[in-house]
């Protein structure tokens, strides 16, 4: 319904436009003299033609819209002619996008009907309306537009994101189908149509000789990449099948182009004048077109990879470079009339590895999204335009015999071709293609817009039967996309074709599969075979020693792929854990994608436990932070002092946004962290509030208890860092006792639930290799408190104490530093929010430590204490994953229950200096813990950002 509105809008625009020009985009541009792919001058954007033609008559048309007032000044003017071209283009894009959105509204509909079908139908309707309204077809799938703009976006996306390994593993089969299969289809269809014509099935009106039919056979035989992607991406057949059909559709472009060109030239000179040498020229031309296209693509891939090596300081140029060079590869190939699709495909394939390694994560995302967006919108437009083009009856002429025969031949020869080639291929293939695969492959031979564009490009003067061919092509395209596209899904289900699984490999699989490659190469060498693995191994050596060295940044070059893969998996896990933030605490189970087997373990119930188990994975990389202290430290010290209580630190961050050329990583990190934290916070708060309600009844009781406890706790605690508050003389406003009490009770309510569970669920044995991060932090037997990363990094915090003598070996940097920090902070905020300080309850050993968490984050509070009240260092250790080595050892020997007594024993009796702080202390850490009152929340939330 909404779409109808848009249709009307477009139509009205179309109507106004219709009056404007005599020969506009409506008329398909005259076929070029060499009907190869379009040349930019002749075709270009149809819109520009519209604009040009519209300029002259425009004023008269405007008169109706805004009547003149005797030449006086007009406040509002109707400037349609000025904006017409971009306006129409934008409207088309809008229509396409809205169509896509609407289509995806209904889940059930989407699973039943392929999008391409719906889009074609929509195009038919749109075309009908436009035709009805203006008596003339204004919009057509224009070959120039198609080949220069729409096709490259789709092919570029396909090439760039093509799974290279899979592609090359199946390269033999793909080439076979693409070259032999297409040739077979073209010749058989052409000859048989000619035969049928001689037999009189096709009407005499169709004036076509053998050459014409061969030409038609060539353009109709190629499987179309656009249609194949559109249909197969929804069907989700297994990767091997997909890559074979899809690879074929991409690579057969060269064959189609050459055949088409050869026949066109034959038709031009007349069949009688073709010499034997011309056939050889045709073969040579094929080699030149395909190999040349590939070469152009690879050259551009090299250039692109090489250029991205040096974009470190201008990250924002990266995505543009990728698009530009990939597109240039296409245009360059087109310029030399080589196979542009091949060129672009190989450019994408070749550069992907190096470019992805060189450009930043942000650029990667940008490239990905932009490519996908462009490709999907281009696809949408192509299908809509296909539908629209079909409506205009003046463009085609119907002949039932030709159409029916074409359909039958195409289908039959495709099936025969696939069967025959597969039979040959299976003699050599490691993984034979079975009957079901063959059925899907022959059924998936979809024809699409490429065939249509080629047939529209034909010169009607030379190919007399052009109109009949156009009709036949339209029907074939519609039939394959609509009928086969619609039925292929049920067919695949019915045949039980193995589907693709969207599973990400686990670390184990990554490692072992890499080992397989090596083992296979070794075995081939031992057996004295120079097989596929042997050559791949050679290639990888070459790549590593020369190519990568040249094309990759130094910083990336050294990195191992396996390492990267592991890192990715870890990040994924970490994110999924965090994503489940709320659930992690409430739900009994935490399931991780790559830890399938583990998820069933009952003790994996919350973040803490998860961390303990995966201590190595989430370690905070202290060393990494340490190594780059940054020049800003001093500046930050200053800022810190001023803003101590107000750590929404990065005023500077806004500066960064003014720079168009630099996106400072530090700023990004900070920003990410803040966002991250807020997320966590909001989640926890909502969670907390529910908990709060639930526990309302015992509130009063606990209130007293809690506050008492806190006081006591606070008294015990402080005394660690003296250097601290000396430096931070910011005054924290006092809060009323009432408020404080409330905070405490809230926290307690929540906390008890978790803490109790945690204790009971602590696993008895922990793998020794894993640093039991949390216990480490708690274990009081450790003398030197390890500071938070912030403390380590930031000098004003450095006074806290001696750094741990070593960072644990477990301080593995699987998660990149920024993520680790974010993780740490989220965890700390999480813990502090959920687990309250209830020191007197023996089963909650962690609590007291937790309660101090806020300390280091709130230097202001500590400073205000004036006495040795800062509850900091111990607390900060809490969530330091890479515990010191000694810590770890001790931690391993400790179970939570044992920790408690130690903790309490460690607490010193309140010393004289701390007495004045007695009243304030509880409040201070309370405030750090409680998030509800803004004054209290501020320091808390900001603390981590500061790190």
């Amino acid at each position, binding site marked *: 319904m909404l779409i109808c509105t848009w249709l009307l809008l477009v139509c009205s625009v179309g109507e106004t436009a219709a009056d404007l020009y005599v020969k506009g985009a409506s008329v398909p541009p005259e076929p070029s003299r060499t009907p190869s792919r379009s040349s930019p001058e002749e075709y270009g954007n149809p819109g520009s033609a519209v604009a040009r033609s519209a300029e002259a008559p425009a004023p008269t048309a405007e008169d109706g819209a805004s009547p003149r007032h005797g030449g006086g000044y007009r406040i509002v003017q109707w400037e349609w002619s000025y904006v017409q071209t971009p306006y129409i283009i934008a409207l088309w894009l809008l229509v396409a996008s809205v169509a896509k959105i609407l289509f995806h509204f209904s889940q059930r509909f989407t699973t039943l009907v392929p999008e391409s079908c719906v889009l074609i139908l929509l195009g038919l309707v749109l075309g009908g309306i436009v035709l009805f309204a203006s008596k003339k077809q204004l919009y057509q799938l224009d070959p120039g537009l198609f080949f220069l703009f729409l096709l490259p976006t789709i092919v570029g996306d396909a090439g760039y994101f093509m799974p290279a390994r899979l592609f090359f593993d199946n390269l033999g089969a793909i080439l076979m189908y693409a070259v032999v299969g297409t040739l077979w289809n073209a010749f058989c269809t052409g000859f048989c149509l000619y035969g049928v014509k001689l037999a009189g099935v096709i009407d005499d009106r169709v004036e076509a000789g053998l050459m014409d039919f061969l030409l038609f056979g060539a353009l109709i035989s190629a499987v179309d990449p656009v249609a194949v992607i559109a249909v197969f991406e929804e069907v989700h057949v297994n990767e091997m099948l997909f890559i074979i059909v899809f690879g074929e559709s991409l690579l057969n472009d060269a064959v189609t182009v050459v055949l088409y060109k050869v026949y066109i030239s034959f038709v031009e000179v007349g069949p009688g004048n073709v010499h034997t040498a011309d056939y050889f020229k045709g073969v040579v031309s094929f080699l030149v077109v395909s190999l040349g296209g590939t070469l152009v693509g690879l050259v551009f891939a090299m250039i692109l990879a090489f250029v991205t090596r040096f974009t470190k300081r201008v990250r924002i140029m990266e995505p543009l470079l990728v698009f530009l060079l990939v597109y240039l590869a296409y245009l360059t190939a087109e310029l030399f009339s080589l196979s542009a699709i091949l060129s672009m495909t190989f450019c994408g394939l070749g550069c992907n590895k190096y470019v992805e390694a060189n450009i930043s994560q942000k650029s990667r995302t940008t490239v990905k999204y932009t490519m996908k967006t462009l490709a999907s919108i281009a696809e949408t437009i192509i299908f809509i335009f296909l539908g629209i083009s079909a409506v205009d009856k003046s463009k085609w002429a119907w002949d039932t015999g030709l159409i029916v025969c074409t359909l039958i031949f195409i289908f039959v020869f495709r099936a025969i071709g696939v069967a025959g080639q597969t039979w040959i291929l299976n003699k*050599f*293939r*490691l*993984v034979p293609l079975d009957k079901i695969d063959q059925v899907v492959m022959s059924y998936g031979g979809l024809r699409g817009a490429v065939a249509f564009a080629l047939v529209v490009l034909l010169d009607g003067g030379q190919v007399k039967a052009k109109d009949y061919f156009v009709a036949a092509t339209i029907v074939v395209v519609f039939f394959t996309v609509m009928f086969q596209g619609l039925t292929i899904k049920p067919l695949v289900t019915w045949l039980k074709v193995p589907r693709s699984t969207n*599973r990400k490999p*686990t*670390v*184990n*699989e990554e*490692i*072992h*599969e*890499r*080992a*397989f490659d*090596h*083992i*296979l*190469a*070794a*075995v*081939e*060498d*031992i*057996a*004295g*075979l120079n*097989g*596929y*693995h*042997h050559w791949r*191994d050679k290639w990888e*050596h070459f790549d590593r020693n020369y190519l990568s060295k040249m094309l990759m940044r130094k910083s990336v070059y*050294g*990195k*191992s792929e*396996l*390492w990267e893969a*592991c890192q990715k*998996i*870890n990040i994924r896990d970490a994110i999924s854990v965090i994503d489940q933030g709320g659930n992690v605490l409430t739900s009994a189970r935490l399931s991780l994608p*790559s*830890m399938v*087997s*583990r998820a069933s373990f009952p003790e994996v119930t919350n973040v803490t436990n998860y961390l303990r*188990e*995966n201590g*190595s*994975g989430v370690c905070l990389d202290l060393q990494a932070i340490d190594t780059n202290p940054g020049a800003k430290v001093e500046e930050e010290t200053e800022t810190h002092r001023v803003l101590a209580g107000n750590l929404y630190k990065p005023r500077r961050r806004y500066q960064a946004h003014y720079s168009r050329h630099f996106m400072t990583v530090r700023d990004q990190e900070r920003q990410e962290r803040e966002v991250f934290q807020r997320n966590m916070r909001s989640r926890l708060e909502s969670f907390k509030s529910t908990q709060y309600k639930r526990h309302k009844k015992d509130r009063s009781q606990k209130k007293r208890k809690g506050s008492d406890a806190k006081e006591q706790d606070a008294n015990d605690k402080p005394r660690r860092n003296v250097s601290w508050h000396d430096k931070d003389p910011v005054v924290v406003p006092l809060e009323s006792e009432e408020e404080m009490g409330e905070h405490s009770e809230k926290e307690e309510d929540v906390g008890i639930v978790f803490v109790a569970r945690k204790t009971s669920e602590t696993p008895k*044995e922990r*793998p*020794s*290799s*894993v640093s039991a991060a949390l216990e480490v932090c708690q274990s009081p037997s450790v003398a030197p408190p390890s500071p938070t990363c912030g403390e380590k990094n930031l000098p004003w915090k450095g006074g806290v104490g001696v750094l741990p003598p070593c960072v644990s*070996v*477990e*301080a*593995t*940097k*699987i998660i990149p530093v920024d993520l680790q920090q974010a993780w740490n902070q989220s965890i700390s905020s999480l813990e502090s929010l959920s687990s309250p300080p209830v020191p007197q309850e023996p089963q909650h050993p962690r609590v007291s430590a937790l309660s101090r968490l806020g300390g280091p984050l709130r230097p202001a509070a500590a400073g205000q204490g004036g006495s040795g009240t800062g509850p900091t260092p111990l607390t900060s250790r809490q969530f330091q994953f890479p515990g010191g080595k000694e810590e770890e050892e001790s931690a391993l020997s400790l179970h939570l229950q044992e920790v408690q007594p130690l903790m309490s024993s460690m607490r010193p009796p309140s010393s004289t200096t701390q007495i004045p702080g007695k009243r304030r202390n509880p409040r201070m850490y309370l405030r750090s813990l409680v998030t509800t009152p803004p004054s209290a929340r501020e320091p808390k939330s900001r603390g981590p950002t500061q790190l």
Partner: protein
Amino acid sequence: MGSTNSTLSKIPNAGDLMQETGFSPAHIVRLYDRYKALDKDKKGHLCPQDFGAIKELAMNPIKQVCQEVLDFPSFVRILAHFRPVDKNRPKDPNSPEHINSRSNKLKFIFQLYDQDKDGKISRQELLQVLRTMLEKQVTEEQLESIADRTIQEADLDRDDAISFDEFRKSMEKVNIEHKMSIRFLR
């Protein structure tokens, strides 16, 4: 190959080997030639040095595919692990599993990892493999973290090592039949 039969007759136990491994006579002959070519000093068996002499293998991080002293039958048997699984070959319920079956392939890989043959891939053993595979591309710490991560993921009984069952489980979803096969040994 006109000399197939004559050469085949020279190979001891060729028939049994073919029966056991499923190689064709041509394969056996070819492997026998290769075997003799590798055995440079004509001592009648292959020792690790012979494999070390293969120069392509020198670049390969996993060289220790064959580490023991091998005679021809064991040489063939090892290579037979990498035959593709053929569906047509009749499976005799009485006979043991084919040497190129999934579990045998897995077992073979497992033994490559499990250097001390205690039925478990320990952290040390895994590290060793990783170290050779990754060469100097990563630091020792990174290596260890990968190893830890791997073990955590696969280790179901928490003994800090990967047993064969755990190994098999972790590879459950991988198409071993395809990935551990070499076309030419078909």
